[in-house]
């Protein structure tokens, strides 16, 4: 029985060792390029010859904030509208979380503040007791006067106008807008730039194709062959024109100009210069 039990334990240990080594080997093989996981596959040397790899994305911004939706698409199918919606939600969540965070970070100072408040509260209670008595007396006189004035005003104007402080006061100087916390939110901005540029061209095309249509008609209703998004290269060998000092590049009916974007110098689709 001893021998049997020892054999079982030894066999289990051996199996464990084999499994550990196998897993290690699998990792090593994965690094080597064979097999591959769910997203591994393909990717031979020829893949690298075509170039065109994206240098963008959330991490390229190197910012302390990101507008990337949770495991959302970084490019391709994401529309400006969905990005805007996502960004709005993010801003709201961020605002809530910032409030919670500040509460957490302020917990230490709150404890100290509580002690100070305890001692000052006693003094304040004494002062308030005295001042309350005085205030009661003043309010009695004041209420009588206000009632008199209100009755008089209603007689003349029907309704009493709102007092001067009715409208919410403007934010104090140095007010920190929530959106400012996302000022370095680079990735969403990169998507927005491309979308805005294409949208502008689509809107322009709408005006050209049907001048009788209202200019405020949504660009999304226009059937238009969108030019390629801003990229480092043009889709053709273009005709070049210089109009008022700006160089334009023409590919068919599409016009482009060079611009500096967050990925470097790119060609942006623009309205025809003439």
């Amino acid at each position, binding site marked *: 029985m001893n021998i049997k039990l020892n054999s079982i334990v030894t066999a289990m240990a051996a199996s464990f060792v084999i499994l550990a080594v196998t897993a290690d080997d699998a990792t090593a093989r994965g690094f080597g390029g064979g097999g591959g996981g769910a997203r591994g596959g393909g990717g031979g040397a020829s893949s690298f010859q075509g170039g065109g790899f994206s240098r963008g*994305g959330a*991490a390229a911004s190197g910012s302390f904030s990101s507008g990337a939706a949770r495991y959302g698409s970084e490019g391709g199918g994401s529309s400006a509208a969905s990005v805007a919606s996502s960004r709005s939600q993010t801003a709201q969540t961020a605002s809530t979380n910032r409030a919670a965070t500040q509460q957490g970070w302020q917990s230490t100072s709150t404890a100290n503040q509580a002690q100070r408040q305890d001692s000052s509260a006693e003094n304040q209670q004494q002062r308030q007791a005295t001042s309350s008595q005085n205030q009661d007396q003043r309010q009695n006189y004041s209420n009588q006067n206000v009632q008199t004035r209100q009755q008089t005003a209603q007689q003349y104007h029907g309704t009493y106008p709102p007092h001067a402080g009715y409208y919410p006061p403007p934010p104090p100087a140095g007010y920190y807008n929530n959106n400012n916390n996302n000022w370095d939110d680079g990735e969403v901005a990169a998507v927005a730039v491309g979308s805005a540029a294409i949208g502008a061209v689509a809107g322009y095309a709408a005006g050209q194709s049907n001048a009788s249509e209202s200019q405020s008609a949504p660009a999304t209703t226009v059937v238009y062959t969108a030019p390629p998004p801003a990229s480092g290269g043009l889709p053709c060998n273009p005709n070049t024109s210089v109009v008022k000092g700006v160089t334009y590049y023409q590919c068919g009916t599409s016009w482009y*100009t060079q611009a500096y974007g967050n990925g470097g110098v790119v060609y942006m689709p623009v309205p025809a210069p003439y």
Partner: protein
Amino acid sequence: MIKTLQKGTRNALCVAILATLAGCAEHQTVTQPDTWASPATVPQAAVPEPTEAEAKDLLLRMANYLAQAQRFTVAMTDNYDTLQASGQKLEFSEKRNLTVSRPNGLRVELEESHGEKHLFLYDGKDMTVFNPSQNVYAQTAKAGGIDEAVVYLLKDLHMRLPLAALLLSRFPAEIESRTQALDYVEKTAIHGVPCHHLAGRTETVDYQVWIQEGTQPLPLRIVLTYKNAEGQPQFRAQFFDWNLSPIVSDSKFVFTPPAESRKIAFAAQVTSIAPAAIATPEAIGGKQ
């Protein structure tokens, strides 16, 4: 019987434990960044490590130290993950030389891993981005100092300037307002320089920062993890050659268009370009 069983069990378990430890050690060797400390330089953990509150003090001490530095130069190398449409994650890298002279001088020289170079200049009046290989530049007026210019560059012009928050005089407030949690990870060393390793979390980014020990609490390394982005890509930056008292002249921040250079717009401003609103040739400057 019990004795025999214990002996057998002990032998078998020893084999398993030794094999497992060997596997772990091997794995650790593979993943250990070469910037980490050698065993000889790692400070001994005899002293209790700082608490969360002390971690916050360390973080803000670093942030205040940078914010109050009137002039500094530093070299930075960074690399970042990009997730391709195929799902493949690639890493790109770049080198930067930064010169800051508060309140109005900022110069960033950038070289990307494929050799493309860019120069960013701000002199208190104009901000300029120049691409020497194509000999083109974009320029726009912006008064108000580095803080205003950097925020405008990223928020309005949608340009890219990694770790821009570190350049702001309000960096302490920025990092404090964004941080939701902060931990002291360990005392370690980078290239032999003792430092504190902190890990913080913001709403959208988890960050790690290694802060030099001593009277100059400078960041030596920063890692950002974009936890909400697909693939959770990282941005990793290493800082070298900090100089808190450089000699820099104001001319270092002024852009003089090279011969034959051509002025172009910022991409974010292109949508506002209309034939009637195009700048005159005199305003364009450089090669037409």
